[in-house]
């Protein structure tokens, strides 16, 4: 009977607090990850929205090509009109 009581005391004084402590640690860690994951999701979403303007690069590409063509035409004309330095 005495051993039984000792077992009861151990359960209540040692085992139960240790179990609660460990489980609470796991729960706190899991809850700490949640806001971080939400921030990551928000950042990824914002980054994706920032890239919505990427198709405009095609317009830029076309404009640059046309501009360089015009510059090349002017350069060719200047090459004919203006004398060389030497």
């Amino acid at each position: 009977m005495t051993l039984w009581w000792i077992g009861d005391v151990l359960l209540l004084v040692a085992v139960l607090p240790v179990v609660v402590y460990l489980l609470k640690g796991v729960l706190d860690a899991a809850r700490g990850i949640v806001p971080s994951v939400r921030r990551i999701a928000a950042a990824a979403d914002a980054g994706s929205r920032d890239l919505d303007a990427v198709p405009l690069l095609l317009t830029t590409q076309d404009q640059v090509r046309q501009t360089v063509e015009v510059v090349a035409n002017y350069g060719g004309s200047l090459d004919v009109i203006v004398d060389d330095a030497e």
Partner: protein
Amino acid sequence: MPAAGVVMIVAVVLIVLALVYYLVSTIVALRQITAGLDEAIEGVKGIIEKSAPVEGVVKDINGNLDAGVDLLEGLLVKKAGLTDAMGLIEGLYPGAAADGLRNFPDSKEVKPPRISEVYTKGTLTLARLGREAPIAAASPNGPVLRNVEGGSLDARELYPEIRQKRPERMPRSPVIGTDSPVQYEPATKEDE
């Protein structure tokens, strides 16, 4: 049942209740994490899909710009000579000549002449207007300073007096081109 047995049962029940509470709470938190990661993955997928064509487009843009730079640098050096070209660049963008021209490594060693003191102020003013272009936004002197009220007078004062006070008596500049009222004969070489 002895009292010790009852206490043990109560202790076990307490432990089980603690296990249930904390494990269920942990499961809920892990599910929230899973949902958040799903959202993050969708965002990352969007980033990957949208940025996929960027490399090719940017390379093409850079290629075209490189060709433009090559052309302009070559033309400037061909027409003005390397020394005067560096002087013109230094006059327009002070300090830029130290960087040299990309296709002319020797240009870094050229001591740029002070062309800004040789060419007229109007010539450099016209050239400096290019500083308003986005590509020249990083000019060491900052954005172009344009004197709206006095700029025209300053430019006019560069020319002889007759151009300022009696411009109406001056003959107009000849109109050239295929539609001009007076057609000039094309220039011929002496040996022809």
